[in-house]
């Protein structure tokens, strides 16, 4: 099935057999909000791909939101997370995301003839790109999204608590933004959980959407991309609220989570304490995090 068709408009319904111009003014299931959300830059060179990437980021998670999907996560320095769940713990997810992500991107670039989705499309990819498919209620989607599948089934492990309270119905009912849900979701309905991220020695901070990630590994990768390996496209995609200043500071905090770099990733919790990221289950972290700080290890006393 051709993923873009689902995203960009339903005229692929196909009866028109791809009659010219059938996409104009067509029902687009991606609302204007999508474009606003994605970034403040006006023109992305690959609009189709960008929208897909957004979907990737939100729904696949492990691929690393956005650009990360094309780079094999395992090959990156993120291979080792000694402290927390490592890439090895998610071998299936990692490989799956790589394969799905590449095929998703392929589809983005392939010609989207108005014909019906062909039977030969891999059944694996079809599901994850269409708004409102599979047809599940918001509530259920959120539940599934926030229940982390812990790699080890410990009796006590209390998996991700609901973090929805932060996202709140407020988003849905504010009159200001239209369609906050349709805007962000290809798939999951959860709204964003943007928190500030500051890095020692870098004057300008960033913001990261914690809800676009489903584990520490992804988050660390995103932060790595943000602060250490900036490219224009990444910052262009990533930045939503902050300005698009390219982070030139790249002194190599590449292993934020396993304690092997000169920086550590910390967060301020609800009680105002600064804590090391990675100790508690992801969901619990989401519930208590207020902001992040990439701190020089030398300053992180006793850690």
């Amino acid at each position, binding site marked *: *099935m051709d993923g873009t068709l*689902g995203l960009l*408009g*339903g*005229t692929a*319904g*196909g*009866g*028109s057999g791809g009659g010219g111009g059938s996409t104009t*003014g*067509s*029902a*687009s*299931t991606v*609302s204007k909000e999508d474009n606003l959300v994605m970034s403040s830059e006006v023109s992305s060179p690959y609009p189709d791909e960008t929208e897909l990437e957004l979907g990737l980021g939100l*729904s696949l998670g492990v691929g690393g939101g956005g650009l990360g999907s094309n780079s094999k996560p395992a090959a990156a320095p993120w291979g080792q997370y000694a402290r927390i769940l490592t890439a090895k713990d998610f071998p299936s997810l990692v490989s*799956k995301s790589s394969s*799905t992500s590449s095929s998703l991107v392929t589809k983005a670039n392939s010609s989207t003839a108005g014909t019906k*989705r062909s*039977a030969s499309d891999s*059944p*694996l*990819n*079809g*599901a*994850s790109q269409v*708004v*409102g*498919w*599979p*047809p*599940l*209620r*918001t*509530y*259920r*989607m959120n*539940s*599934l999204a926030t*229940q982390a*599948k812990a790699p080890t*089934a410990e*009796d006590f*492990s*209390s*998996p991700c608590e609901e973090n*929805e*309270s932060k996202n*709140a*119905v*407020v988003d*849905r*009912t504010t009159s200001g933004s*239209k*369609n*906050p*849900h*349709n805007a962000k*979701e290809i*798939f999951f309905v959860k709204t964003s959980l943007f928190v500030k991220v500051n890095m020692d020695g870098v004057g300008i901070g960033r913001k990261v959407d914690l809800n676009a990630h489903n584990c520490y590994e992804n988050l660390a990768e995103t932060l790595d991309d943000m602060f250490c390996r900036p490219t224009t496209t990444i910052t262009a995609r990533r930045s939503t609220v902050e300005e698009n200043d390219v982070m030139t500071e790249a002194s190599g905090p590449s292993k934020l989570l396993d304690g092997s770099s000169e920086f550590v990733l910390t967060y301020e919790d609800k009680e105002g304490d600064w804590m090391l990221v990675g100790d508690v289950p992801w969901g619990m972290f989401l519930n208590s995090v207020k902001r992040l700080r990439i701190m020089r290890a030398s300053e992180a006393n006793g850690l």
Partner: protein
Amino acid sequence: MMNYFPDEVLEHVFDFLESHRDRNAVSLVCQSWYRVERFSREKVFIGNCYAISPERVIARFPRVRSLTLKGKPHFADFNLVPSDWGGFVLPWIEAMARSGVNLEELRLKRMVVSDESLELLARSFPNLRSLVLVSCEGFTTDGLAAIASNCRFLTELDLQENEVEDRRGQWLSCFPDSCTSLVSLNFACLKGEVNLAALERLVARNHNLRSLRLNHAVPLDALQKILMQAPQLVDLGTGSYVHDPDSDTYNKLKSAVQKCTSIRSLSGFLDVAPRCLPAIYPICLNLTSLNLSYASLIHNSELIKLIHHCSQLQRLWILDCIGDKGLGVVASTCKELQELRVFPSDIHGVGSAAVTEEGLVAISAGCPKLNSILYFCQQMTNAALITVAKNCPNFIRFRLCTLNPTIPDPVTMQPLDEGFGAIVQSCKGLKRLSLSGLLTDQVFLYIGMYAEQLEMLSVAFAGDSDKGMLYVLNGCKKLKKLEIRDSPFGNVALLADVGKYETMRSLWMSSCEVTLGACKTLAKKMPRLNVEVINENDLIDASSDDRQKVEKMYLYRTLVGPREDAPEFVWTL
């Protein structure tokens, strides 16, 4: 003959009519029956809140005590309807308050419920007994606090799958000490914490409590204490079901559970420690309803062990991680099964967890009483559907959802037309059908031909041409709701029989081939339809090109003309 009976007798006879459809029917017989019926109707069901105005409902049924309202179109559940589309309950509550209606029950589905509405509700109707909110949004726990504080005779507060903002107040503590009338309390969908001590006290003093569904924030030790206070429960939804199975608390839970011999329905398990499951085995034998569809952390093997105990199940909601083999166990164990729902646990569709046609066939073979199914699966074959149709001719609801919406039969690579055709042909009582998989116009031909009782049809990514939709509109005489997305049906189909839509509640078409001009034509011909065009991207106005395709169209019959609360992006033609 009946005309010579005094009104009281007629009223007494009408009392025996349970369903609103029957009451609607008798009200059409003659003027006096209409009159008697309207003054005696206490339960009013409004399937589309915009089909009629609150004032007119109250005028016709002044003695209304129980009101059921549905708001947004069904596809709103899947994010296809912008959140400010409408469906506000406030005007209804205001109208009833003004008119002095003695409201005792309010049931809402897919409506926008504000805290203001809840507060007004609580203040205006001292006799309110029952509030049921399903798939609603717009309120916070402050609104619930108002209900708890003011409704002195509350028996039922049932919140199902709503989006509720948690204000971290103590809404549950707002139930006064004098509240002892609760029969049903369901707050499973709330995300925040509740005061556990208040909860325990509440349960302790409400001896009539039959149904209690806790939320995720209520831990297992609290559950244990609650069960000690409420062994009479019939329906239980656990909160967080995680504890050390070697602990004292867990042992206490086991003995508490053993005393709960009335439990017939079980749900919850959002957080679950599988090793704690054995505590509930004693009640499994009596269970008629089991909902494990949020329990993604129970492993396949534990699930199967659990199912082995549940031989009386009539309703089972489960995740697809049970697998085809697990469904085989269900089939051989649960001979009384009537309703099965299998939900996806891994929505990306790449997991190996999903079920296939095998599971469905096994269920159909093992469970002769099956009449309702919702099945999310990786794939489906025509052969399987044909077998299922033969095994289970009693389906009333048949909803199939392939994770890839246009997947063909993987064995033959054919569309699933024949399979669904067999279903509609065999299941003569089928009222609700949802299709998925690769489908051509042929399936609609079958539906039009055979699905004589069909009331609701959901179509996605199906069909080749207008003929498909026409088959359905022409053939399904009892059709009430038709919802279509991403299918190539256009103006010809839409306009072929405009009168049909007045016999239906509503029609939804999104991402189809319908143009603005056709919608305008339809609206002009049928003044008693509201034809709403929803265009979030480009605001539709008078200057838009008629040839422009309409992104989303929702039309419904109404007696009160265009609604006044439509947002900017909704244009009623």
